[in-house]
């Protein structure tokens, strides 16, 4: 089959590789119908997250159609249209039973690589480095899905591929971020980032009862999406002297009740702090540029909630003292998508959540390297590039 493979920093190529086969009894094979770029891929594309190996198939946000099932798969058959969260859960361990899919104990093939980094290992994920499991990714014609009964979700007939696609990652990650905020009537939620995850976090905050949602970014087309498709208020950080002050002015001096970071380690920003981060990151002295996270910590009202969805490495100069003295609650995770998928599929089926507006560019799999370059530079207003294998 054909697949988009990682060959080095900013070096992706479409190669011919073997077709995936059933390797374990709970596996299924799907034909990928749609696959998309995720902001977190850029950290790998740009070389800030190590342990990709040359020849790894890239990508982790996708949907498709079952073509083959292993002997222990009960709930799916050939032809079923499915969406699959990017973290793989076994369904049996204590973490899975608590709905903490990305913390599954049993799906990381190389747990000994991750334990020294985190103290424990996480669940495995598709197309996202060997430290995170090394599973073949989704930018391919076919894919192997372990524990298909727990990880595949039937897509209702009235939910098109374009909507189901984002229920693989952007929507459940955004929804989880809003769920972390424990939203009460009247709450204001500020969201840093109007990429896929940020837009979904904004939409989810409304679904969970927020009174106001403030979306922060600098790209006009993304802010426009937040206004038009999500009905959020927007804040262009290049148009204000100070984001924290601007947010305080928008909230009567109180600050947002909850702040969601949907940006991560390659944040853009302005001023001396950003310049310093940028230099250190370029020299690989630190892996993270944390402008958005630092702003979120400062802006959040006292006793509020900080919800972190952006992907980070091991950041130095982290303002933990601000968190302590302001009594913030910090919630963070990689997506526990399987917990939220049934609800999100219902929202989509009832027309309450349609993420398809985020698709700005479509490519064949053969042209997918161009899709990543566009997505990285954000040229032509690229929010999400979607790949459609032949």
């Amino acid at each position, binding site marked *: 089959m054909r697949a988009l493979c990682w060959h080095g920093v900013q070096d992706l190529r479409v190669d011919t590789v073997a077709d995936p086969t059933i390797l374990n*009894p709970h596996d299924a094979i799907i034909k990928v119908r749609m696959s998309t770029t995720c902001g977190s891929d850029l950290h790998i594309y740009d070389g800030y997250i190590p342990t990709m190996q040359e020849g790894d198939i890239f990508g982790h946000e996708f949907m498709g159609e079952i073509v083959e099932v292993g002997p222990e798969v009960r709930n799916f058959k050939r032809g079923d249209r499915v969406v699959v969260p990017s973290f793989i859960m076994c369904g049996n361990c204590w973490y899975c039973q608590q709905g903490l899919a990305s913390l599954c104990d049993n799906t990381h093939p190389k747990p*000994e690589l991750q334990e020294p980094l985190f103290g424990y290992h996480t669940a495995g994920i598709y197309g996202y480095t060997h430290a995170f499991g090394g599973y073949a990714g989704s930018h391919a014609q076919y894919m192997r899905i372990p524990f298909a009964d727990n990880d595949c979700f039937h897509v209702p007939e009235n939910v098109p591929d374009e909507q189901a696609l984002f229920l693989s990652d952007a929507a459940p990650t955004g929804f989880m971020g809003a769920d972390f905020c424990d939203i009460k009537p009247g709450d204001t939620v500020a969201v840093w980032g109007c990429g896929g995850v940020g837009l979904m976090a904004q939409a989810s905050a409304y679904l969970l009862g927020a009174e106001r949602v403030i979306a922060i970014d600098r790209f006009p087309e993304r802010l426009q999406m937040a206004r038009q498709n999500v009905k959020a208020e927007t804040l262009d950080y290049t148009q204000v002297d100070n984001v924290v002050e601007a947010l305080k002015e928008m909230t009567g001096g109180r600050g947002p009740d909850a702040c969601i970071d949907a940006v991560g380690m390659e944040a853009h920003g302005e001023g001396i702090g950003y310049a310093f981060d940028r230099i250190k990151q370029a020299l690989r002295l630190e892996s993270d540029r944390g402008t958005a996270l630092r702003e979120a910590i400062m802006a959040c009202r006292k006793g509020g909630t900080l919800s972190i969805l952006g992907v980070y490495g091991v950041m130095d100069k982290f303002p933990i003292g601000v968190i302590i003295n302001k009594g913030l609650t910090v919630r963070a995770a990689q997506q526990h998508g399987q917990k939220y998928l049934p609800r999100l599929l219902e929202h989509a089926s009832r027309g309450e959540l349609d993420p398809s507006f985020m698709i700005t560019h479509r490519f064949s799999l053969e042209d997918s390297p161009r899709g990543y370059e566009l997505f990285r530079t954000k040229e032509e207003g690229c929010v999400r590039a979607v790949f459609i294998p032949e």
Partner: protein
Amino acid sequence: MQKSVTVNRPLEELYRFWREFGNLPRIMGYLDSVQVNGQRAHWKAHALKDQTVEWDTELVEDIPNERITWRSVEGAPLTHSGSVHFKPGREGWGNEVQLSLDIDVPNGKFGETAEKLLGIAPTLIAYKTLYAFKSLMETGEIPTLTGQPAARNGGRDE
């Protein structure tokens, strides 16, 4: 080296798996086979390319559902002793399994360490083994990449 894991299966089941040493190659990837002969066992590991290393162990202690201990007999090219303890764990999580492993290459040529011989650092073996064991017990399979597609080795991971 010593590591622990909690596994959500009955104690007897966990003990039975370990007591049958022939099962161990399933959770210790560097082993080819373990053949049991009474109180002794013959272990075979695929060492460096095209090499195998073999050694014999004897059972030192066997308390059902509590503890199994073994050690290599004199003259083995790779000295190896191990002990696995089983005890009831926290409600909802399962039972605790503690693995102690000691692996050394006493008369190895210069640089012929256990890591070079077995292809994995001995300090990583216990964690990897215990989680492979947990996955097998809790799900019936061990997560694997062997045979998945990739643009290397002719299109597939070995």
